[in-house]
């Protein structure tokens, strides 16, 4: 297991070098995306002016403050508290994010499922696990909100953050078919019968 520091964007080779259990920290650009953003983009055909090719997206909708000073806050927003939401709700958007926009990294909590795993293998991508509910800490890794698109969806806009030492994040799913979530689920499935037996449940 190794640690990687990536300056975004990255190449397919860099993504394919990652294995589950490795850790990654990101520098530079990170895009924030969420349920409504992707429903608009993929179900209703909304276009974004951002280029997501070879970039990372994080499942988030931040707490922000509107500010006038555009020299210090180019998007007109100061970050207050930025954290990560549950990824599983957005499972069906992994493939179009990768196929149509060239996204390489999805950051979220709780893991993604089989469709995403197949897309990561086929198209070269990874899922990086962040620790949900630790937004106060995560906010300290964000230098600025550089830009925002689709802002009528606020707070589920498409956010462009500038990050520094964003991590360490755990490679939860890799491009070789590895998934820490599936490993844990297999263990849990094995232990279920024993747990029910201890509870006195008659099968």
């Amino acid at each position, binding site marked *: 297991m190794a640690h990687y520091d990536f300056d975004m964007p990255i190449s397919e080779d860099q993504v394919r070098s990652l294995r589950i259990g490795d850790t990654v920290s990101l520098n530079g650009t990170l895009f924030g995306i969420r349920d*409504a953003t992707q429903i608009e983009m993929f179900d209703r055909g909304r276009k974004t002016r951002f280029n997501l090719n070879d970039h990372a997206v994080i499942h*988030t*909708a*931040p*707490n*922000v*403050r*509107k500010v006038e000073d555009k020299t210090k806050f180019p998007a007109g927003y100061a970050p*207050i*508290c*930025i*954290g*990560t*939401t*549950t990824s*599983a*709700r957005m499972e069906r958007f992994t493939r179009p994010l990768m196929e149509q926009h060239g996204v390489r990294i999805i950051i979220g*909590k*709780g*893991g993604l499922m089989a469709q995403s795993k197949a897309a990561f293998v086929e198209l070269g991508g990874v899922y990086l*696990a962040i*620790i*949900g*509910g*630790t*937004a*106060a*800490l995560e*906010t*300290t890794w964000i230098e600025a909100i550089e830009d925002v698109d689709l802002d009528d969806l*606020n*707070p589920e806009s498409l956010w462009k953050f500038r990050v520094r030492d964003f991590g360490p994040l*755990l490679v*939860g799913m890799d491009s070789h078919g590895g998934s*820490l*979530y599936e*490993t*844990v*689920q297999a*263990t*849990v*499935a094995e*232990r*279920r019968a*024993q*747990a*029910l037996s*201890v*509870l*006195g*449940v*008659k099968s």
Partner: protein
Amino acid sequence: MKINPKIVEDVCKELYIRALKVLPDDIKQGFARLDAAETDATGKAILGTMIQNIKVAESTDNLLCQDTGIPIYNVTIGPDVQVDGHKLKEAIVRACAAATHEYPLRSSVVHPITRANDHTNTGRRIPVINIDFSDEREVLRIEMIPKGSGSENGSFLKMCVPAEGVDGIKTFVVDKVIEAGGKVCPPTIVGVGVGGTADLCVHLAKIAATRPLGSVCDDEAGAKLECELTAAVNSLGIGPQGLGGDSTAFAVHVETAATHITMNPVAVNIQCHSARRATATFTPSAVEYGF
């Protein structure tokens, strides 16, 4: 004791922000207990980061989690408290909107069909306001819970039949904790409602999920069930964030209600590790904040 709605509004605004920033002592102690016992290296590292986050939120005066939740206010009124209930509810709605606008907080509340967000963290029937009565003579207590959605999505109801017995209840709880996996931000408090009607059963699960750690169900059969289920879910190996380990739940809490001879309902409502709540106690001399 007469209650001024304007003071209720100010206090309820303060409660929302307090709840989002500082975790109750019982939850902090719960983290220390799990961290000391965790045997999985990844699980232990994750718990360490969660504990660090609690400290960073306090030292930077920031929110613990970006999810401002669905606001819930539990109001308990003593017999010698004079309050206009309608105005009290209006004051609580105004408090949510004011906290959201002034802080500002992310508005997490939308219309359920149009998905329109009016950026107030309020809407039709939201905040949830529950009213109850106590025998504390001149005491009005308001508890605020910003219920995060990741764990609220881990909510389940099953109308078991009597022939399924307690085995049906136990199996349902174990299977729903497995289904929820890492999506509900473990370690969690698993709230279980047993009995009642369908709606009461789900409400009991919420009461159970938001009870302080260390509290025990006051129904002996329920208390026994919560001990057994706590051990069972923590034997599964789901662990912090669903990435493996011993610390799947701080506890399983159970609340019970009598039910019909033909019914055997069970509900699960889960509280994530950011188990936020804040309380204000109004007495004739002061308003005191706590958990």
